[in-house]
């Protein structure tokens, strides 16, 4: 019984590391002399950050240029005059609403599927660890981490075709399956830290396992669900390889895949293509800006626990 509180503390500790580091660091530097911040280092880092910003800057400025200005070769100039023609043309050329809808549906399905299936399976596994079937299922489901998509791509293309799943639904299912091991890894680690007493008291109050899961466990898993969900979102929204190979109908393609038309046709309409790229990447950037904390923690937890 003594193991669990310790684990819980570590879990909490792990989660707040990103916030407490300033306090910790300042503690040690005060002895080294001076409480001042390192300005030269800040400048070096800002200059390094320019390498991150430049491609994004070029994307945004080019998207708002007129076609005449976009082809003049100067990628770093500001738009003059300011134009939204690129967006209008891109909207029509890529049939943006359709591609956006497909992307949104695939992503929503894979986020929901990854979180719910992962949480249900993890709960069953962690509460029945003494049952061989559940214990083996854990390692079986985790084995997906050893199987990258390219290894099974050819048979999957064939089988989804045979099963009538060579469409966004098939892509969503595959996205869920490839994300499942990561979510089960995080969920089982977290479920370990939930004290049994909580569940026992729910059961004494007459809750069934089904109710205990949905009313008690699933809400407790919320922080993990956020991390798992955001990673499922990013993996699904940004994926190119799987939808491009699995979905056979070009009209049902996701946003990253429809951008290919700018490589074959319309290859010189840079304002149009960049407007299109911007519309495709913006949702992920916005989601990231609002969920940074979970994104940053997810990377660390996935790596250290995996």
């Amino acid at each position, binding site marked *: 019984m003594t193991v669990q509180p310790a684990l819980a503390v570590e879990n909490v500790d792990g989660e707040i590391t990103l916030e407490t580091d300033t306090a910790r*660091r300042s503690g040690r530097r005060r002895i080294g002399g001076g409480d001042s911040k390192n300005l030269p280092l800040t400048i070096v880092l800002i200059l390094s950050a320019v390498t991150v910003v430049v491609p994004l800057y070029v994307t945004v400025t080019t998207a708002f240029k007129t076609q005449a200005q976009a082809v003049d070769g100067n990628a770093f100039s500001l738009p003059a005059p300011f134009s939204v023609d690129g967006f209008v043309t891109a909207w029509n050329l890529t049939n943006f609403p359709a591609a956006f809808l497909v992307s949104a549906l695939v992503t929503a399905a894979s986020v929901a599927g990854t979180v719910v299936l992962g949480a249900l399976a993890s709960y*069953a596994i962690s509460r029945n660890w003494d049952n061989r079937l559940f214990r083996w*299922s854990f390692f079986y489901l985790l084995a997906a981490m050893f199987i*990258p998509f390219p290894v099974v791509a050819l048979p999957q293309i064939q089988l989804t075709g045979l099963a009538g799943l060579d469409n966004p639904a098939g892509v969503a299912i595959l996205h869920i399956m490839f994300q499942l091991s990561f979510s089960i890894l995080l969920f089982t680690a977290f479920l370990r830290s939930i004290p049994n007493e909580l569940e026992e008291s729910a059961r004494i109050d007459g809750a069934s396992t089904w109710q205990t899961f949905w009313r008690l466990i699933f809400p407790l898993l919320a922080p993990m669900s956020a991390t798992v969900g955001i990673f499922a979102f990013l993996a699904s929204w940004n994926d190119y390889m799987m939808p491009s190979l699995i979905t056979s109908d070009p009209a049902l393609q996701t946003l990253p895949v429809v951008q290919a038309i700018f490589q074959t046709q319309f290859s010189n309409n*840079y304002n149009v293509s960049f407007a299109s790229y911007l519309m495709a990447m913006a949702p992920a950037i916005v989601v990231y800006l609002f969920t940074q904390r979970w994104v940053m923690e997810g990377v660390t937890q996935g790596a250290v626990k995996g």
Partner: protein
Amino acid sequence: MTTMTVPVRAAAGPKEATAAAPRGRRKTEPIYYFFLLPSLVLFTLAITVPAVIGIFFSFTNSIGFGDWEFVGLINYVAMFSDPAILQSYLFTFGFAAVTVVLVNVLAFLLAVGLTARIHIKTGLRTVFVIPMVISGIIIAYVFNFLFSNSLPLFGQSLGIGWMSESILANPDLAWVAIVIVTAWQAIPGTLLIYIAGLLSIPGDVYEAADIDGAGKRQQLLRITLPLVAGYVVINTILGFKNFLNAYDVIVGLTNGGPGTATRSIPMTIVTGFTGGDYAYQMANATMFFVIVVIISIAQLRLTRGRNEI
């Protein structure tokens, strides 16, 4: 379960949960099977069955449909004398090795900077992580524009020969562009793991070093680096494994060209879908799978016991 006696902290598997609450072998409630079953069934149909089918057909001469017969190990033997396959392996492993070194060095240095006492720390971290959330193929298209339009203009104005033309069209340099874009995308994830590693080092270690008169550079090389060695191992293996699967970025930059100079293993495998050599490329995929498994086992071996960091 002898492993339960080992005080594992974050090892995989919820072993402690049951070890901590010895309730004997109670009967499993049927509803738990219902919880687990959807994942098991879907996983088996979506991943296990295709994997088994693929491995099975790698021993045949199937072209993806129609009649086929067993041909034994012929596909595997043929791979070793196929210049296209050998080139894709050489390219992919070379590319992965260069990228992994570049990404780890840059990410480690950035992590050291981002955990020091600096101005606008939160803002800088936010910016540095952005590349991780952008679609690989789309950012590759953006870089494609920069490499084939902006960089040549820059090269012409400076009079540098190799830079005056698109490096994407240069068979000797196209891989450099792929390394740059892949690194651009992979640095954030690596960086975040290093930040976690650096923050796990207790401050008093540095206090002691300060008192002993160790300089900042000595502290970095003699204290910081050895203490995050476990994270270096994690990042190297995770990165290498990811880079072997390079596909989206390459499609967006060179599409495997010029010629087949930058065709990665996954790109070669996928040609089996249209190229009529389904069974042959399944042998390639199986080979690739074996390599990934070996790397993953190495990962588990090397990171086991380091989990407590």
